[in-house]
């Protein structure tokens, strides 16, 4: 299944989100595939509540980034200011 590296806490804890099973896993940063960074998508296998294999899915990472860029530029068009702003 797919995993997502949401963030790295304290420079050593990798927080991996697995949407399919609504869980997050925290593994040592040095157990991630090389070239991983926050925002990377992975193919992972889970057994007995643990990640037993993890490989980088670069295509997924790129295509998700593209989706976010498109949505973000659409949303930014709404960036009309705040009605509470003073200055």
């Amino acid at each position, binding site marked *: 299944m797919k995993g*997502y590296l*949401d*963030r790295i*806490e*304290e420079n050593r*804890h990798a*927080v991996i*989100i697995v*949407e399919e099973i*609504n*869980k*997050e*896993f*925290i*593994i040592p940063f040095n157990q991630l595939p090389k070239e991983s960074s*926050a*925002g990377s*998508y992975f193919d992972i296998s889970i057994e007995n*509540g*643990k990640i037993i294999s993890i490989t980088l899915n670069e295509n997924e*990472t790129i295509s*998700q*980034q593209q*989706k*976010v*860029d498109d*949505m*973000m530029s*659409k*949303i*930014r068009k*709404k*960036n*009309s*200011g*705040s*009605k*509470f*702003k*003073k*200055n």
Partner: protein
Amino acid sequence: MYPFKQTFFAIYFFATLLIIGGCSQEENQPNNNIENITKTTEETEINRDEDTPSPTEKQEKATHSLSELTVHYMDVGQADSTLLQYTDKGEEYTILIDAGNWNRDDVIHYLHSQNISEIDIAIGTHPDADHIGQLDKVISTFSVGEVWMSGNTSTSQTFQRLLQAIDQNEVDYYEPRRGDEFKVGPLQIDILYPISVSENDNEESISLKLTYGEVSFVFTGDASRNDELRMINGSIDVDAAILHLGHHGSNTSTHPAFLKEVSPEIAIYSAGKDNSYGHPHKEVVDLILGSNIRLYGTDVHGTIIVKTDGKNYEVLTKKDGKITPPTSGRVPLSKPEPTKKDKQEPGDKCMNINTASFEQLQEIIHLGPARAKELINLRPFTSIDELSRIKGIGPSRMEDIKAQNLACVGG
């Protein structure tokens, strides 16, 4: 009202529950214990510092009386979410700062429990899933006016659901920047950070100072120590009574120079019990306690509520507890030790209210500097019941004072 003995028992009982944990998977149960916060543990009246800037402006603000502002630092596990509620001239105001973790629904439950229907401003300080977690559900469940975000992005499904929710609902979107000022009814908001966003530093968080009358609150999301130093380099005064500690009390935040500039009386962090990161870190707990700042954490106290009328404030917690620095980086406290200031061993000590010093009197529950001063002016007292002559000491506070079993009259 809770008799003091029960309270004391609660501290002890709770502390015994704090067991060292090293789980690799974060807890995933929604927290249902989010209602019925009734217990006052502290009441503080604000000391005016002589070097506090622009007294005229402050007096001006304080001239018309404000209704109560309630700030809920929600217990949402290893995540962040804070709710502000107040009314002014018949209008209700609601602001949400962050929305918990992505795979829980505790923020939604809590907002329902507070009968929220509209939210004026919902802020995602930065796109990490433990901060914007339920913001998409907040937008689709409640009527949200504006969403503020830092401008940094994430490619998580959580973030994408949030963008869809903003797109599909009638909400305004704004990316605030340092120096922006907002007036939300009687509440003033000053943006401390970011100055701009770099897109490669996810910790760059919207940081803000909220001022209600004379009482200010600072929130910094997961801002790093370097971000904090940049905040105090600007022209905005960061001084605040209540500081929400950055990054769940991690040592990546709370630079001593920043803490000194904010100079809070109360520090609050949000962290999950036995979390995998050892939050809050020992250095931060030591720094806060060593600076004589009262420390509260959602892992120890549950949801923490601060109520203020713009002059005085009080802190209410669901659970009693004392945060002590762990002996190593990640071991939680093991033994309760009531602090000198807010807890006393019941029954073994008697403080003569006719002779106690101004400082000593403030060890009595509900007595801050102003009430301690009034007490001294009203001396002598022939019975504890006469403490009801002090402004603000009603029957329920009287009961707390008696339950604390510290105040007595000489004899």
